[in-house]
């Protein structure tokens, strides 16, 4: 059976007050963008939800695309009938039989809502009339109003009824672009793409910065980060990726600092460079995939010492999460398999086997006197290569 319509319900947007229009317009735009290559599909936005006329397109496929658009809480597939009771009864039966072909259904319930209050029959009575019709025309199926296998929603509208059966869980959150811009430190590991995803889910526009140290880090490591940024692009629109040449800074750190502080100072350099890029790009915060205590750079002492060099907020969406939970999300959002490709990134270069887990600001500042900080930051910023992930045409794509 084919559904005529998808109905997208708003999550948190529905709770917004005066800003609500801004959020829903943005979401409407995102939905249309995602369906642009399907000309027959029509998107409409009445006050508190979005309606999609499928016009023959496959509802499952369209829903799958929209499941990852932030700001949508759930998606229901529906058919439309006129307001004739017999039509509504037949529609509900059709939905039940269609769903039954898909999965076993032993119990159901009908939930009627009359948005059109002038409709003469009360909702409760409609539930009974429609439910009885379904029972009469099926075998082995019962009504269960508490935990039904299938809830058939009947909405009585102005001059039509909408009957929905199949529902799809969607990602929730807020539409990308509603929360301003964040610059994400994207390493190529498992955590930072997840952090980026979480922030996108809260409406942030994410740009990414990656530190690359050729020839110590390879082209494959760089490609890995581009592939990760492409995954983020799928969830959150255009993503700009800034690739920073970091070899010079790393060599300077190796040559002029005691082993135990190399990691701490390297991180401070990264934040300094990121802050400059954030200013240029109009990002109001930095973001990392740090999780408290996971590695030496992520102890409170380390964060305290490293954070000293920037005034920008450093958002750490994963700070209180366990590694296994982060990995679960990485698998769900399809970044895990890219992240575990075995290429060394700059974070592990030239580092002692046991970096300091409890550095302090005083020592860090003293050691940094040996480094030409400003010159290194400037050189790194000047050498940045920016890739427009949403827009760049890949010569490989044309081959496939």
């Amino acid at each position, binding site marked *: 059976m084919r559904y005529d319509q998808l109905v997208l319900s708003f999550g948190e947007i529905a709770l917004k007050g005066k800003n609500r229009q801004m959020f829903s317009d943005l979401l409407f735009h995102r939905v249309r963008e995602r369906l642009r290559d399907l000309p027959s599909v029509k998107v409409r936005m009445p006050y508190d939800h979005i309606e999609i006329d499928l016009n023959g397109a496959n509802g499952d496929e369209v829903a799958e695309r929209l499941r990852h658009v932030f700001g949508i809480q759930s998606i229901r597939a529906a058919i439309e009938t006129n307001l004739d009771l017999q039509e509504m009864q037949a529609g509900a039966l059709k939905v039940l039989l269609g769903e039954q072909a898909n999965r076993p259904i032993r119990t159901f319930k009908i939930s009627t809502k009359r948005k059109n209050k002038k409709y003469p029959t009360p909702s409760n009575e409609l539930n009974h009339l429609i439910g009885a019709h379904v029972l009469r025309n099926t075998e082995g199926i019962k009504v269960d109003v508490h935990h039904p296998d299938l809830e058939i929603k009947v909405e009585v509208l102005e001059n039509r009824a909408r009957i929905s059966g199949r529902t799809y869980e969607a990602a929730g959150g807020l539409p990308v672009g509603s929360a301003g811009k964040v610059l994400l430190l994207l390493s190529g590991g498992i955590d930072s793409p997840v952090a980026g995803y979480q922030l996108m889910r809260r409406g942030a526009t994410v740009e990414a910065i990656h530190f690359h140290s050729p020839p110590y880090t*390879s082209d*494959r490591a760089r490609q890995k980060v581009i592939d990760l940024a492409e995954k983020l692009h799928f969830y959150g629109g255009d993503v700009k990726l800034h690739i920073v040449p970091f070899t010079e800074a790393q060599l300077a750190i190796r040559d002029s600092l005691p082993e135990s502080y190399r990691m701490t100072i390297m991180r401070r350099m990264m934040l300094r460079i990121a802050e400059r890029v954030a200013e240029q790009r109009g990002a109001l915060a930095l973001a990392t995939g740090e999780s408290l205590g996971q590695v030496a750079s992520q102890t409170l002492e380390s964060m305290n010492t490293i954070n000293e060099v920037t005034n920008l907020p450093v958002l750490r969406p994963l700070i209180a999460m366990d590694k296994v939970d982060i990995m679960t999300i990485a698998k769900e959002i399809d970044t895990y398999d890219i992240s575990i490709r075995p290429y060394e990134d700059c974070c592990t270069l030239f580092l002692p086997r046991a970096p300091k887990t409890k550095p302090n600001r005083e020592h860090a500042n003293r050691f940094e006197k040996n480094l030409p900080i400003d010159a290194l930051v400037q050189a790194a910023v000047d050498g940045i290569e920016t890739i427009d992930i949403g827009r760049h045409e890949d010569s490989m794509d044309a*081959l496939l």
Partner: protein
Amino acid sequence: MIYLDNSATTKPYPEVLDTYKTVAEEYFANPSSLHKLGGRAEALLNKCRAQAARLLNVKEQEIIFTSGGTEGNNTAIKGVAFGYRQRGKHMITTKVEHPASRAAFEQLEALGYDVTYLDVDREGRISVDDVKRALRDDTILVSVIHVNNELGTIQPVEEIGNLLKERPKTLFHVDHVQGFTKVPLDFYEAGIDLCTISGHKIHGPRGTGILFIREGVQLSPLLAGGGQEHGLRSGTENLPAIAAFVRAMRMTTERARTGIAALDKLSKRIRQALEELPGVTVNTPKQGAAPHILNATVHGLRAEVFIHALEEEGIYISTKSACSSKESEASAVLLACGIPEEAARQAVRISLSFENTPEEIERFLQTFARKLSELKNAME
């Protein structure tokens, strides 16, 4: 030329050959080499795998590229036999498999495995109840061809998969070589553990294919070596062919959106026209068959003679499976359906692709009727 032997092989799309040439020239490095050229080749290989996974609606790590249907079937069947021999040595298949499966099972029988070959009904279909009855505690594999290559009959793989969902110790392999793009199949929903696809049946290059291996299945590899394709199929990756194949997958999948309905119309038209001809019986079932294969018996005429007669007019059809058509015996598939030996020897197969047009089919049908009466007159 009117080419109606698409189940034997298809003509590669020009774009597919372009990709082959460009990749062979510009991405010639070994994807395992550490340098930049190797990295580029590896990146392209990753992209190929990602695109193939997207088109099949499965995960990237569940795809290995093979040399085609024969390798896919052999890897799946023997890979399960060797990888799970501690679990049991019983396997179930059908009497209407492609030789690439059947011969693999025969080899395993010689090694001491126990294989049940299920009977088929008049239409070439096995029954789910028979599968159920054949299952034993030591059954490690059920292997079924989705769309029969000679008849076009569709096997009830979804129902079999459903049955096997309750038996995690029995794996399920589907030979989807003829079905891919013509008869939609959702691997996860159908409970499939292993699925074989071939490139040259969908306008891709020869020597390409995919074996889908569901996450968690532990195959014993047939080709040991450098550990390519997740260690399941060693050998330097044939990147030009893989890229060309993946492009053909995309193009054919796109064609299928409207193409399946069009094919269905064409094959209905052929069926209707052939059924009106005296002395012609259509062997392909009316219901539950793929839209691109039509098998028919031309009574009183040896199939070869008729094929050569049509070929004089630039029309190409075939006898039974191309892989066994040079043997003089009657088709084992048709005999298994209970079609008499004489009628089986006189069977021809017409197989379509999304490229065939209604005009071609009309011309083919006119020529078919004319040649038929010419040959019959000559014999009288």
